[in-house]
């Protein structure tokens, strides 16, 4: 327990003057919001002025970790935590702008209907930000009163599922939606996005979907999707930053024309500045990225990150097409992988014109899991010879390369005199 004694004479008070109690309410509120809620409650005993200051806090954060619930959560402990929240909410006086509930171990969403009452109260109090993190894969349904929170601007839900109520008119003000450990059996995410006209940021982490998910949004700026899904259609032409990490069940191999419109997605991007395609995302996209298929130059694109098999003909071709439409590319990161089942092509990169000006603005390249295969070495050779302003080439080989190969790498001809090849 920090007793403050170690601070010696720091923050010495002016003799007999109590400044803190006379600060404007908005500042006192901000200070209290920086404290764990139990300590905030303690302030009711300070003086008459402070008796009900806690009750008008605009942000309420309930974390099970702040309550010594012990390592094995028992029924009684859960009751205490729930009761505390019940009390605070019922005695609370004034708007609640932010509500955060961190209860990953406690069975909060199961019995008792507590969360329904809490959500109803929040919807009546103009809440702007809601964060609920619960036990994962419980698939508890978010109460429908969540959708009556008309002032909602930011929502982060972990471990919950939801269903849009029939008369839902949309979240007019919401700018960020963040779903974690989310299991979808229908396109409710897509419907929610469609009813959120001002949505700018959409993050889906560890999504598990058996449904056909379709995300359409013209205002969306930042998109992050990772997880396992069987079908994903993205129409978000104005995103400036996109990270897509597509995992698949073992044994399932994405085939041509697989259920993802990733190649059209990339082709439709107008304002993209950085893009990451990980897992099987680029492999899928590659089926549709062919010479001439990417309709326009992506002038704002400065960073590309790909998980890619450079020896796979389709992927190599697609990568080449992508580089060709990104004249202002400054950073490339490739997480190299050998997928093992496609016809390898060792000479693709050697056959490309090395003076084509492909990497005119490239400043940094990072290659991870470099195994020194023909394709990978061929690509590196091309890049070094064609990048006139390259500064750093970072190659992470996990100690796979022998001394001879490493020497050969370092000896490769470079177009940029300042280029530094770093082996890790």
């Amino acid at each position: 327990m920090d007793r403050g004694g170690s601070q010696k004479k720091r923050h010495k008070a002016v003799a007999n003057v109590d400044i803190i109690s006379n600060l404007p309410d908005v500042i006192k509120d901000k200070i209290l919001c920086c404290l764990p809620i139990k300590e905030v409650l303690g302030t009711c005993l300070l003086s008459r002025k402070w008796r009900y200051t806690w009750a008008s806090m605009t942000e309420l954060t309930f974390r099970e970790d702040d309550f010594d619930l012990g390592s094995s959560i028992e029924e009684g402990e859960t009751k205490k935590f729930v009761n505390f929240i019940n009390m605070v909410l019922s005695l609370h006086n004034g708007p609640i702008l932010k509500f955060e509930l961190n209860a990953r171990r406690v069975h909060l969403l199961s019995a008792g209907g507590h969360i329904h009452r809490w959500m109803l109260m929040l919807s009546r109090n103009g809440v702007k930000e809601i964060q609920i993190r619960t036990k994962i894969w419980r698939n508890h349904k978010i109460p429908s009163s969540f959708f009556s929170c008309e002032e909602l601007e930011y929502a982060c839900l972990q471990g919950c599922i939801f269903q849009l109520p029939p008369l839902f008119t949309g979240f007019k003000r919401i700018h960020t939606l963040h779903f974690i450990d989310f299991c979808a059996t229908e396109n409710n995410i897509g419907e929610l996005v469609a009813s959120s006209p001002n949505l700018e940021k959409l993050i889906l982490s560890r999504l598990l979907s058996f449904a056909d998910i379709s995300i359409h949004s013209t205002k969306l700026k930042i998109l992050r999707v990772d997880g396992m899904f069987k079908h994903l259609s993205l129409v978000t032409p104005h995103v400036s930053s996109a990270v897509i990490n597509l995992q698949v069940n073992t044994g399932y191999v994405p085939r041509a024309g697989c259920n993802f419109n990733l190649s059209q997605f990339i082709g439709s991007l107008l304002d993209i500045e950085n893009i990451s395609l990980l897992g099987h995302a680029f492999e899928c996209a590659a089926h549709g990225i062919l010479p001439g298929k990417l309709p326009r130059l992506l002038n704002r694109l400065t960073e590309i990150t790909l998980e890619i098999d450079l020896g796979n003909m389709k992927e190599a071709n697609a990568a080449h097409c992508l580089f060709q439409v990104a004249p202002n590319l400054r950073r490339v990161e490739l997480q190299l992988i050998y997928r093992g089942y496609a016809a390898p092509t060792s000479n693709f990169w050697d056959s490309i014109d090395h003076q084509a000006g492909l990497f005119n603005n490239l400043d940094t390249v990072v290659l991870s899991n470099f195994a020194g295969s023909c394709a990978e070495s061929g690509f590196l050779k091309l890049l070094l010879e064609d990048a006139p302003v390259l500064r750093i080439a970072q190659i992470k080989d996990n100690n796979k390369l022998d001394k001879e190969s490493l020497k050969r790498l370092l000896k490769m001809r470079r177009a940029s005199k300042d280029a530094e090849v770093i082996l890790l």
Partner: protein
Amino acid sequence: MASAGSGDEKAATVTLISSDNEHFEVPEAVATLSQTIRHMIEDGCTDGGVPLPNVTGRILAKVLEYCNKHAAASDKDELEKFDKAFVDIDDQATLFDLVMAANYLDIRGMLDLTCQTIADMIKGKSVEEIRETFNIKNDFTPEEEAEIRRENQWAFDD
């Protein structure tokens, strides 16, 4: 974002006038860390200087120290170090003056920093210790105090 002057001209500045009539000429890019001043610049009412009747010269100088550092947007670790030293102040009164100034001038980062610092002075302390730290006078009668403890018993049970 402030409108930066073109390369060969001097960057646009704004004059801030403290409550005790000290004048500070500050680049717009620095002054606009204050949303209050930013709106004034956008509304074009900064001719002849911006009077800040709620901030003394001494405090304004410190505020500008913060704004200068943060406007230069150096790296995160450096800023963290600076922030830590910035609030390592000897007397509480200055800390409170800074939090009031940050609120009045609407400088988000500085407001968060100073409020967190004050919160850290409360954290982990008993009621009596908090009173002592901030000179809060206990004006409850014993009956009142007993009533509060009953009213909020659910919060104190541990």
